[in-house]
């Protein structure tokens, strides 16, 4: 009998806390949203299940424990390895031609990083986060999961779980967050601006782009080299036309494998002790602030650019909202919004892809600057 009692006492059930139960519910919500609403399922399923694993008492499956997930966390996230590999896959999967054909949209991608800094300042001055935490929270406004994980794992590893969840949750909520802000900041006349086709891009230019961008960005902000270098390497093997096998692996099996490890390890940082704190609530609020300011930054800057552009070259300011990254969802949201507002006459999907992919570069550079100045 003593053995049975001892066995029961050693079971996870006997050691479950109310915090674990709450985390099970949160993990269940993430998994539900991923399956039923298709909200970033490739990430939210591993993150949700990782959160369940981390909250199994005595299971040693949390990222801060000593089990196999901790091994992935310590060797893959703490060392900065996994996010750059994801970025390599993103580079393979991203067509930068819409950006190259209309280089001015680089600026919209920069302006749409406004939310990063607005959220960081709000976190620091109003919610008493320290500088490193504030910067890690701010990067949620870059709407780029791997970049958020990359920066948070370096500056505020204890906040990695809530930051990753906020980043991916708000990315999937872009269709809800952005349209009201775009509507508020643009007039009907502006929404009706039909941009001409972008300049066609030669293969030579498409090949030179990753080489030059990767080199220049890494020279300017060395801390961004892991992200920018890998992103641009991925894009080079996409564009060069002679590395089909590498392209297929980096954009397929490899990014999938790394996504599984990254998602599980990030989810497993969400044990009750680390996640159920007032700071998590603050991070979720600040994530919304970051996305809203980033959207507004892109739109407002497009309007400012229009003051200086000739009539024939005016930009539909709605595409500025796509500068928040969240590729390609933000561009699709802009396309759908403008199309609905103009009864299908204006369809700026390709123009919106320019700032959309520029935003990936912008947020990676912003993360690099934060690392340089704060690490």
């Amino acid at each position, binding site marked *: 009998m003593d053995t049975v009692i001892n066995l029961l006492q050693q079971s996870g059930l006997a050691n479950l806390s109310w915090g674990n139960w709450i985390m099970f519910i949160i993990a269940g919500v993430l998994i539900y949203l991923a399956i039923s609403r298709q909200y970033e399922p490739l990430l939210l399923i591993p993150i949700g299940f990782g959160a369940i694993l981390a909250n199994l008492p005595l299971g040693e499956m949390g990222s801060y424990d000593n089990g196999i997930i901790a091994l992935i966390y310590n060797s893959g996230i703490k060392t900065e390895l996994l996010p750059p590999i994801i970025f390599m896959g993103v580079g393979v999967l991203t067509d930068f031609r819409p950006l190259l054909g209309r280089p001015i949209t680089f600026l919209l991608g920069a302006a749409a990083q406004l939310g990063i800094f607005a959220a960081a300042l709000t976190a620091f001055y109003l919610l008493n986060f320290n500088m490193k935490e504030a*910067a890690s929270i701010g990067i949620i406004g870059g709407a780029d999961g791997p970049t958020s994980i990359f920066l948070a794992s370096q500056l505020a590893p204890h906040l990695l779980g809530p930051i990753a969840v906020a980043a991916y949750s708000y990315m999937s909520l872009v269709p809800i967050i952005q349209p009201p802000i775009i509507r508020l900041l643009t007039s009907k006349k502006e929404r009706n601006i039909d941009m001409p086709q972008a300049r066609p891009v030669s293969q030579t230019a498409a090949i030179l782009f990753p080489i030059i961008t990767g080199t220049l960005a890494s020279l300017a902000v060395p801390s961004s080299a892991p992200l920018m270098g890998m992103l641009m390497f991925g894009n080079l093997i996409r564009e060069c036309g002679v590395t089909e096998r590498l392209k297929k692996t980096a954009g397929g099996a490899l990014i999938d494998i790394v996504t599984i490890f990254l998602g599980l390890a990030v989810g497993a940082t969400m044990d009750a002790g680390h996640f159920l704190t007032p700071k998590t609530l603050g991070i979720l609020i600040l994530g919304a602030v970051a996305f809203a300011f980033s959207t507004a930054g892109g739109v407002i800057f497009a309007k400012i650019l229009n003051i200086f552009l000739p009539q024939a070259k005016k930009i539909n300011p709605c595409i500025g909202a796509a500068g928040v990254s969240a590729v390609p969802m933000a561009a699709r949201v802009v396309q759908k919004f403008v199309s609905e507002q103009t009864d299908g006459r204006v369809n700026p999907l390709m123009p919106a892809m320019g700032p959309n992919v520029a935003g990936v570069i912008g947020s990676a550079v*912003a993360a690099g600057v*934060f690392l340089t100045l704060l690490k």
Partner: protein
Amino acid sequence: MGPQNLLVICTSAFAAVFLLLAFLSLVMRIIITVFPKQLSKDDAAVFAAVATTVSTVYPGTKITRFEEIK
């Protein structure tokens, strides 16, 4: 670091992002100009489409040459 420093850091970071992307924009503009996409002068599919359309509208017309005017 004092409270005012994060403001300086954020301002510097935003400026750095802007400057770098503006510079990249300029460089890419130059690259696109130096290495323009060569439009195919004998695109068979386009030629066939134009020829078919014109011969439908103006039966008996023979297309000998077509060019793109920008």
